[in-house]
């Protein structure tokens, strides 16, 4: 089973995205992707309550295809954010958290700690658009959290430094590397697998911001065992989310 661990749904002028579940499922069908793990852009960037509700509606339309990440647009909403996370888990059936970090609003700060602790309690992995250094900060406080470094260092705020991302993952056994990235470097997937094991490498596409084909091909073409490839292409994210294949 192929599962895309990094997909966006909803609208964002900044990212030039306007996508509903039907569109994303059509794209997944073309690539032979069975399930997509989505985060709603309104929840991620503007209003967590509205956006998570919108995602839930799309999940209900495609229950066999769309898995949901609850999203929080900031760490600064205290108990309201924790309550929203629980509501998304208990009421909406969302099985992960997505959160975005940028230099002016880094999530590597004390307010993130109770959110991480809640994710541990709810057994929700956290897909975090972060730098390796931010991941190290968070895991130094809550090492039990299952933290997925979105883009595995291959994003602007991390300066594309996936070598640094791998080093962070070597240090923290609960840190996972998401291969979604504009970067398509030869040998990248192989180096991740060699350094931290295939069990901690996850396939994602960032659809519909990025073109999904290169993201899929870089896993399919990687010089790794077929068993490792299957873990990366879906086994790992299903295991982290506690979802049966």
């Amino acid at each position, binding site marked *: 089973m192929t599962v895309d661990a990094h997909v966006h749904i909803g609208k964002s002028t900044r*990212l*030039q995205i306007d996508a509903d579940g039907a569109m994303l499922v059509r794209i997944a069908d*073309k690539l032979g992707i069975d399930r997509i793990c989505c985060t709603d852009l309104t929840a991620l960037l503007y209003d967590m309550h509205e956006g998570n509700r919108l995602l839930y509606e799309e999940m209900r339309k495609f229950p066999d295809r769309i898995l949901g990440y609850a999203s929080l647009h900031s760490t600064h909403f205290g108990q309201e954010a924790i309550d929203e996370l629980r509501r998304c888990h208990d009421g909406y059936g969302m099985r992960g958290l997505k959160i975005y970090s940028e230099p002016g609003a880094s999530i590597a700060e004390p307010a993130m700690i109770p959110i991480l602790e809640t994710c541990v309690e709810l057994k929700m992995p956290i897909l975090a658009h972060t730098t390796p250094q931010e991941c190290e900060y968070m895991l130094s406080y809550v090492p039990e959290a299952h933290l997925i470094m979105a883009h595995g260092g*291959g*994003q*602007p705020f*991390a*300066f*594309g*430094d996936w*070598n640094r991302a791998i080093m962070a993952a070597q240090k923290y056994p609960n840190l996972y590397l998401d291969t979604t990235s*504009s*970067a*398509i*470097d*030869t*040998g*990248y997937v192989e*180096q991740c697998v060699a350094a931290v094991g295939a069990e901690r490498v996850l396939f994602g596409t960032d*659809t*519909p*911001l*990025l*073109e*999904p*084909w*290169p*993201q*899929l*091909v*870089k896993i399919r*073409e990687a010089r790794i065992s077929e068993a490792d490839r299957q873990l990366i292409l879906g086994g790992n994210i299903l295991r982290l989310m506690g979802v049966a294949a």
Partner: protein
Amino acid sequence: MIFDANAFIGKWPYWPVRSAEASEVAKEMAGWQIDRAAICSLRSVFIHWEDGNREVEAAVKADPVHFTPFACLGTNELGQTASNCAYDFADYAVRGFRGVRLYPQHHSYHPLYEAFVDSILEDAAQRGWPVVLPLRLVMNWGVPSLNLGVIEGLVVRHPRVNWILAGINYLHELQLAVSLMRRYPSVHLETSCVMGFNAIAKTVQQCGAERLLFGSGAPIQNGAAALSKIVHAEISDADKDLILSGNFLRLLGEK
């Protein structure tokens, strides 16, 4: 036929890459079903442009079937000592070079303020040689990049040049490239770093398939992943053929 407009030989200094020698790059290309590639040497980018050009010359002599040489030209301002800034295009032509690449972000010059750049571009325009101007070498957020305004400034100043804009990713970067392609028929887009969703099809819709050239960024970037954007783009087979080789062959005067 698949003709890669943007490949390299030589060593990549930022992280280990499994291929560097021309023969190794040719082997990688074969594995990715890429038949032919325009190359320059990373030595040109990181050490000295003319030393790298000599490496390219030797590589093409050894394997003229797979490689087409592009000359990397840079500043002569070494050791703060002004020297002769003449670039002998006739000599480059005799040596087999077919086009030019500029990497100002790696060669410590501002391309809008240095006269030798205008001289190179006027010569290239006269000969009809394509000029590759990369926003960045490969799609990595940490490697040095050019300011988009500088790219626009050069194109506007030299509209007769057969421009190949490389290293363009998504969002505003792609929009600038599209805007320039729509204003200037001599502007083309190389695809090695174009990563936006459906970007190939959208650019074809806006500018025509004749303006896109397949590029891989190999061997630093994965050629199969680079190729997949074109192969799976929702465009006609005829348009794919143009992007995969036809347009570059036309620019090189081989078609």
